[in-house]
């Protein structure tokens, strides 16, 4: 007994908790990126799809009367913020897929029989991976929008774009990972992603302002999380940054930039507390 356990304790005290956590999270993240580099089609599709939205949809409504849009901006510039957010959103919504496949193919069991310091590292790896991918895709869209003449936010605006996207990506990634453990298989997960994607886009201010919508749709758009991410980014593109000005004229009242960010923050924290018991239950 003594010899057997002493081997075990000596190896567990060999490294600190942090360095073990770092080692396993890095290794798991590296695996996800290796998969991406060898199968880049999802990354490319994730950039192409919003690009097509930007170019085709932008062209479709390029002759829209200017006074329809706030601040008399062009439709392309108006659409840019929507497509950036939509890109980050759909990227993050897919976060659960690799985890679901690991569950289905039994790779997760390989991770679960290993003496991981914390099984949260499986979740951390997914969050790091999806955040990097979503931000890369969004940057690609921002670059294209700039080339199309739809503008570029200033340094402060860029920071705001980053913070907004991070909040949204964290929230949606948490949701998707939760679904990946709650649903029985990848078919169901893909179905949910498929159903959630477009309606959330249409029922937001990505393609048209609330003032343009019938009142029931306006209500939907005014509670849609995408709207709270789109409007600050649109403001960052509009000119000098001022989070104090009213960004959303919602049926229930007006909301300024701080309000939008607070809602996003609350959503992220709320989802985190909603999902983490589920992940804990499934991973321990």
């Amino acid at each position, binding site marked *: *007994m003594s010899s*057997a*356990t002493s*081997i*075990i*304790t000596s*190896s*567990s005290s*060999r*490294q600190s908790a942090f360095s*073990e956590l770092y*080692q*396993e999270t*890095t*290794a*798991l993240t*590296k*695996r996800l990126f*290796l*998969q991406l580099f*060898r*199968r880049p089609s999802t990354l490319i599709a994730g950039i192409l799809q919003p690009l097509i939205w930007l170019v085709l949809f932008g062209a479709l409504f390029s002759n829209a009367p200017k006074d329809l849009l706030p601040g008399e901006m062009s439709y392309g510039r108006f659409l840019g913020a929507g497509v950036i957010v939509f890109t980050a959103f759909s990227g993050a919504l897919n976060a659960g897929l690799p985890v679901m496949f690991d*569950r*289905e*193919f*039994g*790779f*997760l*069991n*390989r*991770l*679960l*029989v*290993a*003496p*991981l*310091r914390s099984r949260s590292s499986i979740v951390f790896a997914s969050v790091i991976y999806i955040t990097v991918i979503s931000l890369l895709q969004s940057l690609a869209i921002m670059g294209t929008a700039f080339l199309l003449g739809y503008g570029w936010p200033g340094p402060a605006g860029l920071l705001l774009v980053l913070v907004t996207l991070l909040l949204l990506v964290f929230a949606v990634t948490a949701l998707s990972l939760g679904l990946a*453990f709650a649903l*029985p298989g990848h078919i169901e997960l893909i179905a949910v992603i498929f159903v959630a994607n477009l309606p959330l886009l249409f029922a937001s201010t990505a393609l048209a302002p609330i003032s343009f919508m019938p009142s029931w749709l306006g209500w939907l758009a005014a509670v849609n999380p995408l709207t709270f991410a789109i409007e600050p980014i649109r403001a960052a593109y509009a000119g000098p940054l001022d989070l104090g000005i009213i960004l959303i004229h919602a049926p229930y009242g007006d909301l300024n930039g701080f309000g939008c960010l607070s809602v996003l923050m609350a959503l992220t924290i709320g989802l985190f507390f909603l999902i983490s018991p589920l992940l804990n239950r*499934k*991973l321990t």
Partner: protein
Amino acid sequence: MPVIELEDLVKSYGPVKALNGLSLQVPQGSLFGLLGPNGAGKTTTLRILCTLLEPDSGQANVAGINTLIDPRAVRRAIGYVAQEVAIDKILSGRELLNLQGDLYHLGKNDRDQRIEELISRLDMGNWIDRRCGSYSGGMRRRLDLASGLLHKPQLLVLDEPTVGLDIESRAAIWELLRELRRQGTTILLSSHYLEEVEALSDQIAIIDQGRVIAKGAPDYLKSQLGGDRVTLRVREFSNANESEKVLKVVQSVEGVRKVVINRAQGYSLNLVVDNEKVLTRLRDQLDKEQFGVFAMAHSRPSLDDVYLQATGRTLMDAELEVAGKRDMKLETKKAMR
């Protein structure tokens, strides 16, 4: 001290009772075989041992550590090679081993050196840098063995290690397991192949319907059954009348315990005898009574006879019985977290 102690394990999946009070002790340094038909509870037992499942009741200890109290220490002590090998098709074998090493927190130099060792020991050099998706069944199994051995576990647990493998790969894996045992690793393997368990294990437990029905060294179990088996034919095709007469003759021979007429096999006689020496006496007695001997086959009892004795059916029959009843969908679900 036993490396593995399983005490009264019970585990149900809905209405199906997979384990029904299973208890087992695996001594240090042994190569221990779990034998039983599909659905007997072998995989469930191993999953509980590897902390993938929690038992409904009962407990499991590995190296004196309870799987529920300190699962991380148990995981570190065990190298687990699952039945369905889960690999990442898009990574190379070496990348997979690197990942495995990081999950077990090996230092980089340690890890790389150990990987090289295993590559040469398992003869994986030619293909280890190719993507796993292109591997054959034998290659995959060798890679999985390597990842199970990477952190030098004191206990190696293998679930059906050679199922569906070609003969060459099977022999290579058998040889490796024997070598590991010589070096002091305790090995627990499950199998529904009689010959695999018989060829490898120095201790076995036969599992049926979620409990251990016999355990011990294979030779011990067979000798416990007692007696050797003899199949006797006085002619190629005998008849009822003649076989009755022969039965009376052989029954009187000293050392013959039991005689059964096997009508399905041309009225041959199946005998259980004390030992090999009885054969000579049988020949003499038949000669004296003017019966010829067309064939007399002698065999030691097999593990299948042990299984037959304990359950009243052969392993093959048990397999066939569950073959149509397996719910693959349910089993996939069981394996999912």
